[in-house]
């Protein structure tokens, strides 16, 4: 044995001596730069060869390498380093974690900038933060990330996301949504992109950072960048998620059947007493009510006769009991526990001449509303090559195929809207048919039969949401292709010419089938087919120059860009079903409608930008963009947008050198103008006649919107001033920022008098400003080797005010726009409570003098038509923000994100309709129990009276509710298996995690979603879902 060993030793020595006569043995350690901890199983590779080794459990290594070789040190989660050996025998390497640091880059318009050199206002979300939050639509991860950004809630429909407002509300009638850019090209269907493919999402908040998107950046920019391969070591990851989706916001509290019948009886009795010309007394009206209430409600779910359900004193007959109490819960019937699953793999790597990234993903998320779901398959290939030093090219190709069944909530009071239907269904109507004894009526197959005839006028008689949802279809099939390609030529040192091209294609095919038995398709059966197709091309040519003269650094850009968007719409509908089970149009006999049209939108622009800094300490940047849009008449379509910005890195100054407790202190300011052309139609400047044929003769009809050749760009001028700080080695960091943003030449849809026949016209008229303060503080409360607790709080306050309008005031729904008020100030009748003598709802009314002038005094009136309107509050909150807690302990990560709002009002029209009783059969909120019943009652709920509903429940400040809320948006926990364990099975990492979205919200009224809209309105919609997911991530 010893001889063999000795022999082998000699051979090895000889071989190594012969082969690598110049080799030396290098020893050393690899540690984490931040914590000092050794990194076991880190990889060390001799560059250009396959020779390599790894550190042991103590982070130590030994390797034989040539004296002048180069070693590459790497480990997952760290930036790799290349170290030349240079004959050293001991090399100790500290690897830096790939986490937030000032050396990171910020994604900006047409490129990236080092974070320390960035003079604008932006907040980024990196892919790492998305790891533990599996989301179908990644935009939802932006909520709470940055001060100054407001969100509405995402609906429960899988794949949906909320709306975003960056630094207030930029426009009244034109779009206030930010511009979404994906890999350099405007694109807004973010739900089509798999979250796994996202490298970074950056929100550009001020004019300076978004000015290069000038023409459409008035409301800020959300910049999405997809992944590419970047490390020498091939990364290969597999992810699996499983989860459930349930109703996130409970239903409003409503009366049950036993409470409901007596209340409806009272409403009927009171209406008999108050009807004009009525001769009833209390006694006769009560008798009539007891006799007839069941015929108004059209269903008797009790075991007593129709005229004995409610006694003449208004109480429920004590002998009455429900025949089928288990069959009355519609809210439960429209919901279920949805199952969510996701599987994906991605891989990426890089060499010195190329990098590549590929991913494949499949997701299926069932919503909690029955039948709704989204199923999505995505694939991506992103490859960049640099064959020569002066030539670089790349192609980023991705495809998505998605199918979904959508719950129809287009109309807040639509028969096919399950939330409207179930919420407003009186508690006395069964889902299935029953006989007189309460037993289910069964069909010839022994199945229960749906009941939809015996319902009151307010209970959607003749319709059945469960039957219709189950028997109808509302399917979307989506095919999406995104491509980005580019070529860069490095002509001279620092001078680069780039050509970038992007093509996005989206086709949504929607099939709607309506069954012949019940619903809109009854009795013939109908099928509709709609195709929406978007083709978008974007092409730009850029010339950039980066150079330095001594300590003066500059980079310049000039370029040209063109954008083309074609939208094609095809629609056909036929009725008269031939054979059940086939929803294709061929299976129907009569064409009801067949049409198509094509809309086009084009923009073109020239741009220039210059960034200058002195010694990375003083910065100055300026940009200019001249843009044209097809949405305006040729003489008015060009606009000029520009910006300037500067920053001063105070921490780099010599006088700050002693203040070692300051790691970062930057003062920055910017001012710029950006534009908005977001009218609702692409042809708003044109005076048009639509096509309206009279049977078989062709016809034209004047558009109800007048044209305007003078229509031009809406302009946002914003000023931004900020102080960014990082103290105690960035243990405490954050920023304070002030902004003032003026929207001028507001694109306004000015209402014209109805008597002109033309109802509106787009004009540039009006000015508004948004001004606010953003404060963000992030602190590592505990920062240890093994335990780290960081809390980040942000707070924003905003003021919005109109300073100029086309006419003295414009009333829009519950709001009135007037100079000196915000666009979200409520203009309503003011409720004056309830008259204790009559139970009538009272409203305030101005007292006028003989000349018709307001005296300042007010009286109350019970006639809602005579009530005066007043400003009664706003939906804009006093302040809002988020609190995020992140805790890491050894291999555990825990994070909790809460968002909150203080102040602001919501006009709860859903609650108002639940307190209204104009129709027998619709449900009522439990607050109706507090109603006025007899003279002397002091309460805030008026007397119920079916005939006087419009008077008792008119739109007024009575329905305004506090919009303050505290919401636990996300809680997630993750555990990374120890590296030692993981490398034993030849893997780089294993992570398990659990995440919950929309955990709970504290609001002023159960059932209300104060985050539904920025305007403080409510609607019957697919309310947000609570989603709990468990996941596993394996890195090879």
């Amino acid at each position, binding site marked *: 044995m010893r001889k063999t060993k000795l022999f082998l030793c000699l051979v090895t020595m000889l071989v190594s001596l012969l082969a690598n006569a110049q080799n030396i043995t290098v020893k050393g350690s690899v540690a984490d730069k931040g914590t000092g901890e050794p990194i076991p199983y880190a990889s060390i590779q001799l560059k250009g060869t396959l020779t390599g080794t790894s550190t042991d459990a103590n982070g130590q290594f030994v390797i034989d390498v040539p004296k002048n070789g180069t070693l590459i040190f790497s480990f997952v989660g760290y930036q790799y380093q290349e170290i030349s050996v240079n004959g050293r025998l001991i090399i100790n390497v500290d690897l830096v974690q790939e986490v937030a640091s000032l050396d990171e880059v910020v994604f900006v318009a047409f490129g990236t900038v080092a974070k320390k050199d960035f003079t604008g206002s932006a907040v980024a979300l990196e892919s790492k933060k998305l790891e533990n939050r599996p989301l179908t639509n990644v935009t939802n991860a932006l909520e709470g990330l940055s001060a100054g950004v407001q969100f509405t809630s995402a609906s429960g429909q899988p794949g949906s996301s909320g709306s975003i407002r960056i630094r207030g509300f930029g426009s009244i009638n034109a779009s206030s949504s930010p511009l979404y850019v994906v890999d350099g090209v405007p694109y807004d269907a973010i739900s089509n992109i798999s979250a796994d493919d996202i490298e970074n999402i950056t929100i550009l908040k001020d004019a300076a950072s978004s000015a290069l998107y000038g023409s459409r950046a008035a409301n800020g920019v959300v910049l999405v960048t997809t992944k590419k391969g970047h490390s020498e070591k091939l990364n290969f990851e597999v992810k699996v998620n499983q989860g459930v989706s349930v109703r996130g916001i409970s239903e409003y509290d409503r009366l049950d059947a036993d409470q409901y019948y007596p209340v409806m009886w009272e409403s*009927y009795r009171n*209406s*008999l007493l108050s*009807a*004009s*010309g009525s001769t009833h007394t209390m006694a006769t009206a009560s008798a009539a009510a007891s006799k007839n209430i069941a015929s*108004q409600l059209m269903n008797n779910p009790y075991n007593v006769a129709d005229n004995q359900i409610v006694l003449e004193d208004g109480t429920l007959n004590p002998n009455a009991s429900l025949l089928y109490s288990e069959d009355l819960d519609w809210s439960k019937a429209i919901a279920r526990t949805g199952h969510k699953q996701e599987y994906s793999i991605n891989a990426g790597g890089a060499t010195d001449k190329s990098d590549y990234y590929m991913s494949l993903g499949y997701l299926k998320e069932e919503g909690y509303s029955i039948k709704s779901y989204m199923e999505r398959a995505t694939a991506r290939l992103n490859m960049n090559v640099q064959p020569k030093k002066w030539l670089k090219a790349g192609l980023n190709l991705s495809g998505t195929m998605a199918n979904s069944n959508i719950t129809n909530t287009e*109309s807040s009071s639509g028969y096919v809207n399950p939330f409207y239907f179930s919420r407003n269904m009186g508690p006395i109507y069964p889902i299935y048919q029953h006989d007189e004894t309460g037993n289910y009526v069964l069909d010839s197959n022994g199945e229960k039969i749906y009941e939809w*005839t015996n319902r009151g*006028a*307010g209970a959607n*008689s*003749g319709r059945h949401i469960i039957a219709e949802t189950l028997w109808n279809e509302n399917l979307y099939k989506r095919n999406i292709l995104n491509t980005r390609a580019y070529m860069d*030529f490095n*002509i001279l040192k620092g001078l680069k010419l780039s050509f970038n091209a992007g093509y996005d294609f989206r086709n949504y095919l929607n099939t709607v089938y309506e069954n012949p038995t019940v619903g809109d398709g009854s*009795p013939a059966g109908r099928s509709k087919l709609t195709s929406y197709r978007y083709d978008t091309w974007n092409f730009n040519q850029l010339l950039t120059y980066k150079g330095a003269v001594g300590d003066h650094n500059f980079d310049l850009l000039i370029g*040209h860009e*063109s954008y*083309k968007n074609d939208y094609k719409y095809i629609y056909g509908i036929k*009725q008269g079903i031939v054979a059940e089970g086939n929803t294709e149009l061929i299976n129907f006999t*009569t*064409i*009801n*409608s067949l049409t198509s*049209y094509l*809309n086009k939108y*084009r*923009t*073109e622009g020239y741009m220039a930008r210059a960034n200058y800094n002195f010694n990375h300490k003083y910065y100055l940047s300026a940009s200019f963009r001249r843009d044209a849009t097809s949405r305006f008449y040729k003489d008015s379509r060009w606009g000029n947008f520009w910006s300037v910005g500067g920053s001063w890195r105070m921490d780099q100054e010599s006088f700050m050198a002693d203040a070692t407790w300051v790691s970062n202190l930057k003062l920055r300011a910017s001012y710029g103008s950006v534009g908005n052309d977001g009218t609702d139609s692409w*042809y708003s400047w*044109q*005076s*048009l*006649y639509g*096509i*309206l*044929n*009279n*049977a*078989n*003769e*062709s*016809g*034209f*009809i*004047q558009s109800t919107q007048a044209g305007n050749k003078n229509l031009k760009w809406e302009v946002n001028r914003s000023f931004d001033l900020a102080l960014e700080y990082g103290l105690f080695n960035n243990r405490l960091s954050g920023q304070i920022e002030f902004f003032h943003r003026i929207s001028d030449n507001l694109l306004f849809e000015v*209402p014209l*008098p*109805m*008597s*002109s026949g*033309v109802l509106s016209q787009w004009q540039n008229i009006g000015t508004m400003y948004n001004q606010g303060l953003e404060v963000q503080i992030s602190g590592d409360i505990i920062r240890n080797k093994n335990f780290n607790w960081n809390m980040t709080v942000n707070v924003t306050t905003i003021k919005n005010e109109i300073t100029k309008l086309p*006419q003295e005031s414009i*009333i829009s729904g519950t709001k009135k726009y007037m100079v000196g008020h915000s666009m979200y100030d409520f203009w309503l009748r003011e409720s004056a409570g309830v008259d204790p003598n009559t139970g009538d709802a009272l409203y305030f009314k101005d007292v006028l003098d003989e000349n018709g002038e307001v005296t300042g005094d007010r009286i109350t009136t019970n006639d809602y*038509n*005579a009530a005066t309107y007043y400003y009664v509050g706003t939906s804009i909150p006093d302040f809002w923000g988020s609190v995020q807690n992140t805790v890491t302990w050894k291999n555990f990560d825990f994070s909790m994100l809460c968002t909150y709002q203080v102040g602001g009002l919501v006009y709860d029209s859903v609650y108002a309709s639940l307190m209204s009783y*104009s129709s*027998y059969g619709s449900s009522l909120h439990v607050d109706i129990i507090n109603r006025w019943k007899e003279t002397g009652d002091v309460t805030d709920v008026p007397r119920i009276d*079916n005939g006087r509903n*419009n008077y008792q429940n008119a739109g007024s400040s009575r329905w305004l509710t506090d919009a303050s809320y505290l919401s636990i948006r996300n809680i997630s926990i993750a555990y990374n298996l120890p590296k030692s364990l993981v490398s034993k099975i030849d893997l780089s990492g294993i992570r398990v995690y659990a995440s919950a979205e929309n955990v709970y919200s504290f609001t002023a009224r159960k059932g209300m979603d104060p985050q539904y809209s920025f305007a403080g309105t409510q609607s019957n919609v697919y309310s947000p879902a609570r989603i709990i997911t468990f996941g596993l991530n394996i890195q090879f």
Partner: protein
Amino acid sequence: MKISLKIFALLALVVSLASCSEDFLETTPTSSYDQSFVFTTTDNAFAALNGMHKSMVAQYNSRQNLGGYPSFQIAMDCLGEDLVFPTAGNGWWTNTGEVKWSANRNPNGWMVYFPYQLCYKLISNANMILDNIDAAEGPDNQKNMIKGQALAYRGMAYSWLVQLYGDRYNANSANDGLAVPLVINTVEVMKPQETVANIYAQIVTDLEQSITYLSDPDNSYISFTSKSHIVASTAMGLRARAALTMQDWANAKKYAEMAINTTSATLMSQTQYTQGFNNADNPEWMWGFEMIPDQTMYFYGYMAYMSWNFNSSNIRGCPKCINSLLYNKISDTDIRKTLWDPTGRAFTMPSSSYKRYPYMNKKFAVEDYSSSVADANYMRLGEMYLIAAEACANLNDATGAANHLYTLVSTRDKSYTKTVATGAALLEEIYVQRRIELWGEGFRFLDLKRLNLPLDRTGANHDESVSLTMKVPAGDILWKYAIPQDEIDANDYIESTVND
């Protein structure tokens, strides 16, 4: 140097690519045409007229009871006492305000918004035609025919507006109450309210000019196959209606008789009377709308509410009935008596899910109970006889009245004998025949208002919890629709207190 050649070549490439063609940014929609195109030729202008015909029957505001002129007709009967809703049904027409008289004075409601919206749409389109057609290329007689139709629409729209939003016209008073803005060209489009008297003056001018244009045989440029086009006799009928409302009996008689003599329509047979009032081929129809299957109105259509057999939840749950007191006045030998069933059990319904109520109607029907497609009737010859009879009676020409009444009623009731009544009794008989004949066709509210009669639904088969309002005295504010809030907000000339 080779490298600099490369640079220049590339830069040249950049410059040549770096700007798009001139018309890159010019885009036009495919679903609309520029205004100027519409008036380049008279053929295109004729298409603009067709657009007006179609807009009379179209879906408005995504609300099922706003389906154009037929919906207005239903509203006029809902407000009267002769049409009875046995239940609140599924809310349309009852909870929306018409039957209950609960939204006449609500400026924010759809009930006052919709007629205002539709009338001014027709007026604006008519003004566009009248202002621009002279410059179009095409024969003069086609231009005059188009002008004639446009003027008829304008006259009709203003008469509809002034009857709803103004006080009742009283031939013995000045009629200087304010009603609605009078917009008669495309230049002055924001105007203050005009007096009832002046609006009627304009109506008379417009309709008489329309009659002149359309009566000229030269101007019957095309012989129309579709009854949606307005011909001379239709304009005469509109003029007669206006005269009737103005208590201008001489002109009412003159134009009604002129319409009777000019029209090619003839009174329908008894069989045709029972065929459902859904086909424009009916010989008595003078003006209406012909609906083809791919222009169905679905649940917005007239028949979706008024027919006895279309399969909508509104009809299945609430068939429309006649006032029992009126029914009892119909002679037993009259074919019209068969259109209603006092027992509520006699008709055979398409399926068991249709409810039946006493006095339910069978007057209106669809051909295929799964489709609400049906032609719409705006004006028929029978009405002309009733106008002529009423006018004669008011002129103390009892014979003339009796003759006109006989011509009409004898076709409905073979046993009818010419009436010998005079004075108030004669008028009462004419009114009753008018109510029976024009039941459901959009006249009752307007008749009660012009005759200064109260609404009285008592003593009949009205369910007070459904109808709610059982009596409204004549002259009450409720007889005048409120001016819609949107108009008040956008029209500088109209004060916000106008509805107080």
